[in-house]
C-alpha cells in the first residue's frame, strides 16, 4: 500500500541525489511530520507510568491530580493492569460527557461506548458483526470514492463486498443521493448491502458535510435499511471558518422519531488525529446508537476476547475528552499549544490549496477539513500513456520522489473516477516553506 514510503526507505542508503533530505508528506501522521505532542498529555502519561514523579516539583499540580485520579481507577493503581473490556469506566464516562457537550446536550451513555485500539479496531469490530455470506448474500458496505484504503482493506480482509459511491468532485466532493441510489441499486444485484460508511470530515478529500447533507444520508439509510458507520476521526480538523462539524448522532437526534429511535449508527473517533495526533498510542472509540440489545451482548463478548485497549491510549482519550480548563495550572500553555497547532494546520491547508491551484495542470477543491489535500492532476496525454504499466499518478509520485525527494501519495490508492488522477498531500507539516518550492518547481 504505502509503496512510495518503501521507495523512500530504500533510497536513504547514501545515493547521490539533487536534494539533501527526503520529505514524506504522504502519511496521516502528525508527529512523524514534525508536530510536537501536547505537553500536558505527555506529562500525565509519564506520571502514570512512573508515579514517583508525583512527588517531584517537576510537574504542574493539575497534571499530578489527573494522574493520581487515573491511577486510582486502575486495578492495583497500575497502568500495567488490564482494564474492563470496554475501557476504564471513568474514561467511558468522560467520553460520554464530551460527546454530549459536543452535540449540544444530546444524551450519551457510557455503556454504548467501546474504547478500542484506534478507530481502525473499532471499525473492524463492527464489520465483523456484519460481514458474512457468499455470492449474492455476501454483505456489502457502501463506501465513498475516493476512499480510505485502510477501510477497504479491512472490509476485503473480512470477506465483505465494497459498494463504491462516487463523491462529486465538481461540487467540492459532496455526497449525492442520486449517485448513492445508483450504487446501491447496482450492488443489490450481486451482494447484500447492509451498511453505509461515510467519512466526515472526509479522507482524503477534506469535505465537511452540511447538516442537510447528513440528514439526507440518514434518511437514505433509513429508507434503504442500511446500518450507518460514521467515521468522524477528523472532527477536530475543520479549517474552513464557514464550515462546521456536526455529528451524525446529533443530526439523527434532532430529526426526532421515528429516525432518532430506529436508525442504527456507529460513530468512530480517535486520539490519532486532531490536536492530539497520538497515532502511536492507539486510542479510539465507537459509540453505538439504537443497536439491538441482544446484538450488543455479542459485541461485548466478541470484544472481550481482545482483553482491553492499551492504557496509554485510553489516557490520551481521557485528555482529548476532558482537557485542562480555564483556571487549571496547565490551561494557558495547553491552550496556546492547541491554538498554535490549529492555526498551523488551518494556514497550511489554505496555502497548500492556493499553491496547488496555482500550478498548471493541478486543481484542488476547497480543503474544508481533514488533514489532506487531494488535488486532481490534469496530465498531458503522453504521461497517461502508462508506459511502465504503472498508474499515471503513481508514476508522477515516483518521479517526484526521485527527482525532488518529495514523497506524496498517489490517488489510485484511494480509488477515483476512471481516467482521473489525483495526489494526496498531507497538510500537517510545520515547515511548509520547504515543501512549497519543491512542489511548485516540479
Amino acid at each position, binding site marked *: 500500500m504505502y509503496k512510495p514510503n518503501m521507495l523512500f526507505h530504500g533510497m536513504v542508503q547514501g545515493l547521490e541525489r539533487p536534494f539533501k533530505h527526503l520529505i514524506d508528506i504522504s*502519511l496521516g*501522521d*502528525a*508527529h*512523524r*511530520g514534525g*508536530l510536537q505532542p501536547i505537553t500536558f498529555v505527555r506529562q500525565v*502519561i*509519564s506520571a502514570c*507510568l512512573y508515579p*514517583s*514523579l508525583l512527588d517531584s516539583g517537576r510537574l504542574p499540580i493539575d497534571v499530578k491530580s489527573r494522574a493520581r485520579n487515573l491511577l486510582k481507577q*486502575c*486495578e*492495583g493503581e497500575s497502568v*500495567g*493492569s*488490564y482494564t*474492563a473490556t470496554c475501557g476504564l469506566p471513568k474514561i467511558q464516562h468522560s467520553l460520554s460527557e464530551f460527546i454530549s457537550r459536543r452535540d449540544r446536550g444530546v444524551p450519551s*451513555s*457510557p*455503556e*454504548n461506548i467501546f474504547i478500542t*485500539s484506534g478507530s481502525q479496531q473499532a471499525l473492524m469490530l463492527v464489520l*465483523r*458483526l456484519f460481514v*458474512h455470506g457468499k455470492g449474492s448474500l455476501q454483505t456489502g458496505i457502501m463506501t465513498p470514492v475516493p476512499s480510505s484504503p485502510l477501510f477497504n482493506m479491512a472490509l476485503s480482509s473480512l470477506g465483505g463486498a465494497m459498494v463504491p459511491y462516487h463523491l462529486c468532485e465538481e461540487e467540492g466532493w459532496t455526497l449525492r443521493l442520486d449517485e448513492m441510489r445508483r450504487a446501491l441499486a447496482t450492488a443489490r444485484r450481486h451482494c447484500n448491502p*447492509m451498511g453505509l460508511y461515510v467519512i466526515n470530515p472526509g479522507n482524503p478529500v477534506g469535505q465537511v458535510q452540511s447538516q442537510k447533507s447528513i440528514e439526507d444520508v440518514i434518511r437514505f439509510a*433509513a*429508507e434503504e*435499511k442500511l446500518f450507518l458507520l460514521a467515521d468522524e476521526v477528523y472532527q477536530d480538523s475543520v479549517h474552513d471558518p464557514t464550515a462546521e462539524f456536526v455529528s451524525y448522532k*446529533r443530526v439523527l437526534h434532532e430529526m*426526532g*422519531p*421515528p*429516525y432518532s429511535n*430506529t436508525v*442504527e449508527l456507529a460513530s468512530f473517533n480517535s486520539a490519532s488525529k486532531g490536536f492530539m495526533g497520538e*497515532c*502511536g*498510542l*492507539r486510542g479510539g472509540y465507537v459509540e453505538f*446508537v439504537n*443497536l*439491538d*440489545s*441482544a*446484538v*450488543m*451482548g*455479542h459485541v*461485548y*463478548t*466478541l470484544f*472481550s*476476547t*481482545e*482483553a*482491553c485497549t*492499551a492504557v496509554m491510549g485510553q489516557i490520551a482519550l481521557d485528555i482529548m475528552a476532558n482537557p485542562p480548563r480555564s483556571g487549571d495550572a496547565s490551561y494557558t500553555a495547553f491552550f496556546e499549544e492547541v491554538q498554535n497547532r490549529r492555526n498551523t494546520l488551518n494556514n497550511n491547508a489554505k496555502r497548500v490549496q492556493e499553491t496547488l491551484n496555482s500550478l498548471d495542470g493541478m486543481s484542488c477543491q476547497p480543503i474544508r477539513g481533514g488533514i489532506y489535500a487531494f488535488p486532481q492532476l490534469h496530465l498531458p496525454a503522453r504521461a497517461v500513456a502508462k508506459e511502465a504499466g504503472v498508474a499515471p499518478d503513481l508514476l508522477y509520485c515516483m518521479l517526484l520522489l526521485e527527482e525532488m525527494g518529495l514523497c506524496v501519495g498517489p490517488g489510485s490508492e484511494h480509488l477515483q473516477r476512471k481516467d482521473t488522477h489525483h495526489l494526496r498531500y498531507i497538510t500537517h507539516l510545520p515547515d511548509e516553506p520547504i515543501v512549497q518550492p519543491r512542489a511548485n518547481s516540479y
Partner: protein
Amino acid sequence: ACKCGRSFTSPRLLPPTRISPRTRSDVDEGLQPDAPPGAMLARRTVGLVSRGGPPLTPRSPPGRSVQRMMAEKVLTVDTMNSCVKKVEYAVRGPIVLRAVQIEKELKEGVQKPFSEVIKANIGDAHAMGQQPITFFRQVLAMCSYPELLDDDRFPEDAKGRARRILQGCGGQSIGAYSASQGIECVRQDVARYVERRDGGVPSDPDNIYLTTGASDGIVTMLKLLVAGEGRSRTGVMISIPQYPLYSAALAELGAVQVNYFLNEERCWSLDVSELRRALADARRHCNPRALCIINPGNPTGQVQSRQCIEDVIRFAAKERLFLMADEVYQDNVYAEGCEFHSFKKVLFEMGPEFSSTVELASFHSTSKCYMGECGFRGGYMEVVNMDPEVKAQLTKLVSVRLCPPVPGQALMDLVVNPPQPGEPSYSTFIRERKATLSSLAERARLTEQILNTVPGIACNPVQGAMYSFPRVTLPARAIREAEERGQAPDMFYCMKLLEETGICLVPGSGFGQRDGTFHFRMTILPPTDKLKILLSKVKDFHQRFIQQYS
C-alpha cells in the same frame, strides 16, 4: 468439552447499565437492573423528542410502510454474522460480569457475607499488587515525556535506552505510527534475545512481528491458516483444557476445533498417542493443518519436558501440521526439575531434517512472566520456515490494523534487552525480577499444597504459568440442580462460591475438560497473605457445598 448452555448469553448476567438521573424513570418502569448495555438507550430513545436546534427543512414524515420497515433493525441476531454468536470467552464472561455487579452492590452498601470481591479469574499480576520493574517504567516515562531526559533522578543507562527507542520512532515520538511489523530496532533486539535464549540458534529480525499482546499474533496466524469448505475446512488442534482465546477465534473464523486431551493423571502432560487419535478422528471430517500448544500451560500450568516437545515436533513434521507455540509464560517456571525449552530451540537442535521444514510460529508477550504489564498490550511472534508468499500476505494482513501500540513496543524492547551486568540499573533489576518470580513460585507451591488438603479437590502441581486448575468432585444432586438451571455444574459451583465468599474464579467448562469432570481456574496472583485467606475460604466453601448437596 462441556458447554455452559444458554446462561452464558442470557442478558440477565450482563452488568447493570449505569443509570443517570435522567433515566430514573426507566428503572421505575421495571427495566431489569442487569439489562445488557444498549438496552437502556434503546428504551430511552423511544421517548425522545426533537430538542430544538436549528429548524429543519420542512419535510413530510416517512410514509407508514417506511415506518414499519424502519421498525425492523438492520443488525439483529438473525442478520448478523452467525459465527460471532458462537464466540464465548469465559475469562471475561458471565461470572466476571456478575462479580463486577456484586462490587457495585457492595459500594452501594448492600450487605454481603464478605467485604470485597477478589478477582482470581484473570492473569493480571499488577491488579493483585505486583510491582512493575522500576527500570522499565523509568525508560517508558522518559520516552513519553523526553524533557525528563535531563532529570537527575534517572540513571544513565535508562536514559540511553529511552534515547535509542525515540530514535527509532517517527519524529522521535512514541505518538507516531510505527511500521506495521513494528519498530525496526525493537525487532532487531527481539531477534538477538531469541538467539541468546536459544543458545545461538539464528533469528532473523524480518521474521519477527511485533503484536498487540500475543493474542493479536495468534488470531492473525489463525486467519492465515483457516481456509476450505465442508470436509476440507481447516481443522486446528488445540489442547483441552485450553486458553479460550483459541476456541473463540476458531468459532469466529468458522474453523474446526480439533481437541486433544492433556493427561490429568500425569500432571497434564501431552501424549503423542492422544495427538494421533485426535488427528485420525479429525481427518474424517475436516482438514487438520495446525497444532497449537501452550507451554507453560494455561490453565493447566504444566511445563512440557524437552522429550515431549521433540515428540510434538516430530509429529507435526510427519503429519504436516503448522506448529503454533504459545510461550507467553516462558519465565514462569517454578517446579524443581522443570525447565522452559523453546520450540524453536528444540526444533533446531533436532537437525536440518526438521529445522528446515517444520513451519512454526512462536508467541510471547509483555503481560506475564515477571513483567505483568498487561495494560501495555505488548507482544511479538516469530515465524520460522514460512513460505515467502504466505509471509508477504502476513505482512499485508498485519498492516490492516496499522501498528501495535508504540509504548508496548518500547516495553518489549526493554524486556528483551534488560540491564546488563555492570550497568547502573542492573542490580535493582535483578533483585526485583528475582523477588517477583520467587514469590510466584512460593504461591504456586502453597496453592497446590492447600488445595490438596481438601477432600474432593485434587490439584496437580503448578509447575509454571499463573494458575491452578484443580479438579473438584461434585455430588450428583448438585450436578442435577445445575442441569435443571441450564448451567454447567462447575459454573453453578463457581457462582455459588462467588455469591457466598466474593471470590471470582473461572469454571473449568470455560476452558474445556473431559466429560464428567469439573474444574475451576484460580490465579496464584493474590499476595501471599490474601492467597492463604482465599484458599481457606475455598476450602470452607467446598466442604459446605458437599454437605449441602450430598
